[in-house]
C-alpha cells in the first residue's frame, strides 16, 4: 500500500495540473457545441440544439475537404520529415569536425517563431522578387517563367508542405539523434562478433532500439501537424480559392472570424476524436513494428 501511494505522489502534481486546467475548457467547449451560440448576436435566442452542429459539420463539404487536405498534409510532411530526419540523424551520429556547430545551427529553423517563419518565407516565395524564383528560374533554369508559389492553385499546397518540412526536419533529427545517442554499445558489439554488418546492423539493432524515439517523434509531429494553422494563415490565407484550407484554419475562420464559436466547438471535438483515433492507431502500429 505504501509503495503504491508514493508512486502516485510522483505522478500527482503533473496529472492534477493537467486535469484541473483542461476540465473547464473541455466541458465548456462541449456545452458550446450543443447550443447555437454566436459571439455578439444578442437578438439570437440561445437554445439547446442537440447534435445539429455535429450533423452540419458532417454535411459541411468545405470542412470535409479541409480534413482531407489535412490528412494529406500530415502524411506528406511526417513521412518526409521522418526519412530526411533519420538520414540526417545517422549522419550526425558520427564524430566529425564541427559537429556541435552543425547541430546547434540546425536547431534554428524550428526555433524561429512560426509567425516569423511565415513572414520569412513570404519574402522568399514572392513570385516577383523572391530568391527562390531567382534560383529556380534564373539560375537553375528549371522553369521558363516565374512560379507563383502561393498564388498558383496547383502549387500553393505544395509550398506549405515545403516550408513545414524546412522548419521541422531538424526537430525530427534532434529527437532521433538523442535516441541514437542513448543506444548502448553492447548490442552492436555482440552483433559484430556474430558477423553482422552495415545495413543489417541498422535494421536489426538500431531501428528496434530507436523505436521509442521514433514513436515520440512521429506522434508529436502528427499531433502538431494536425493543428497547423500559422503557416497557412500567413502565406496563403487558405487560398487561392480554398486550395490550402486545412482543418485548423477552417475552425479558426468559423470560430473567430465569423463568430460561430458553437459550430467551431463542434468541429474541434470532431477533430479531437479523429486525432485520438489516429494517434491510438499509430501507437499500436509503431509498437508492433519493433516486436521481435
Amino acid at each position: 500500500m505504501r509503495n503504491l501511494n508514493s508512486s502516485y505522489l510522483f505522478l500527482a502534481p503533473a496529472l492534477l495540473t493537467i486535469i484541473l486546467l483542461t476540465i473547464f475548457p473541455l466541458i465548456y467547449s462541449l456545452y458550446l457545441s450543443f447550443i447555437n451560440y454566436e459571439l455578439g448576436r444578442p437578438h439570437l435566442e440561445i437554445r439547446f440544439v442537440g447534435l445539429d452542429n455535429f450533423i452540419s459539420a458532417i454535411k459541411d463539404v468545405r470542412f470535409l475537404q479541409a480534413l482531407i487536405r489535412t490528412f494529406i498534409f500530415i502524411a506528406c510532411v511526417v513521412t518526409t520529415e521522418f526519412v530526411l530526419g533519420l538520414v540526417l540523424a545517422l549522419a550526425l551520429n558520427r564524430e566529425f569536425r564541427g559537429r556541435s556547430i552543425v547541430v546547434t545551427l540546425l536547431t534554428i529553423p524550428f526555433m524561429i517563431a512560426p509567425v516569423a517563419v511565415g513572414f520569412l518565407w513570404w519574402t522568399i516565395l514572392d513570385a516577383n522578387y523572391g530568391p527562390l524564383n531567382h534560383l529556380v528560374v534564373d539560375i537553375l533554369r528549371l522553369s521558363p517563367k516565374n512560379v507563383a508559389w502561393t498564388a498558383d492553385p496547383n502549387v500553393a499546397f505544395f509550398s506549405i508542405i515545403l516550408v513545414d518540412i524546412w522548419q521541422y526536419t531538424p526537430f525530427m533529427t534532434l529527437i532521433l539523434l538523442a535516441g541514437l545517442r542513448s543506444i548502448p554499445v553492447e548490442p552492436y558489439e555482440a552483433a559484430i562478433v556474430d558477423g553482422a554488418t552495415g545495413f543489417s546492423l541498422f535494421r536489426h539493432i538500431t531501428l528496434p532500439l530507436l523505436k521509442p524515439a521514433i514513436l515520440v517523434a512521429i506522434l508529436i509531429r502528427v499531433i502538431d501537424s494536425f493543428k497547423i494553422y500559422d503557416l497557412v494563415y500567413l502565406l496563403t490565407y487558405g487560398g487561392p480559392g480554398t486550395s490550402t484550407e486545412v482543418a485548423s484554419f477552417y475552425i479558426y475562420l468559423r470560430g473567430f472570424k465569423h463568430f460561430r464559436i458553437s459550430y467551431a466547438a463542434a468541429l474541434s471535438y470532431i477533430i479531437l476524436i479523429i486525432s485520438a483515433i489516429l494517434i491510438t492507431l499509430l501507437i499500436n502500429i509503431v509498437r508492433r513494428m519493433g516486436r521481435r
Partner: protein
Amino acid sequence: MRSRTNIIKEVLFYAFIAVVCLVFLFPFYWLIITSFKIELDIFHYPPVYFPMRLTDWNYRTGLIDLWGLKGITDSFIISSLNTLFVMALSLPAAYALALLPIRGRNSLLNYILSQRMLPPIAAAIPFFVLWNSIGWLDTYQALILTYSVFNLPFAIWLLTSYIQELPREVYESALVDGASRINILRHIIVPLIKPSIAIAALFTFIFSWNEFLFALLLTRSHVRPFTVIIPSLIGGHVILWGAIAAVTLVGLIPTVILVLMLQRHLIRGLTFGAIKG
C-alpha cells in the same frame, strides 16, 4: 586503394553536410540580411544577397519604437518559468509512469498525450473566460499555466519513453542497495537521461516562446509576448519587413543561448558504459 575510397567518402560526406546546412540555413541568412536592409532592397529584382546599403532603422523601430524588446523580455519570463514548472512536474511523473508500480499506466499515458491534441481554437475562448473570471487576464501566470497543458504531455511522454528504455537492472540494483525512490530518481535516473531532459526542456521553452493564439487572446497591454508584437508590425498600410526580421532575430537569441547551454547534453550524451560489469 582503401584510403582513396575513404577520402572520397569523407569528401562526399562533408559535401552532404554542407548542402544540408545551406538548405536549412539560407533562410536564416536571408533573415539576417533583411534585418539590415533598407526597404527598397527588401523587395528588389534581382534579389539582393549581399546588401551594400545597410541600416539600423529596423532594429531601432522594431525593438524600441514598437516594443520589440519588451516583447522579448515578456516572452522570456513566460517561457523560462513555464519550462521550469513543466520540468519540475514532468520528471517525477515520467519516472513514476516508467518505473513505479502504477495501475492503468498505459491509459494514463494515452490520456496525458491526448491533451496535447486539444485544438487551441477550441480551448481559446474557454481559457479566456476562465482567466477572466479569476481576473488573471493580461498576466504572466495565465500564459504559463495555459502552456503547461500542451507542454506537460510532450515532456512526460518523451521522458517516459527514454526512461523505459533504460535497462531495468539499473533501477532494481539500486532498490536492492536500499536507495529510496527519490534518491534513485535524483542520482541515477536523471544523469542517465540527460539528453532527453535537455530536449524536453528545449522544446518546452521553444513551444512557449513561439506560441501565438493564446498569447494574443490572453494579453492586452501589461504583458506583450513577442509573438504578438511581430504581427503588430503589420499595419493596415505598411508591413515593416525589416523590423520583423530584426525582432525575430533578437528573439532567437535566448533560444540560441539555451541551445548552447544544453548542447553538451544534446550531443555528447552519456552512454551506458558505466553499467558494464
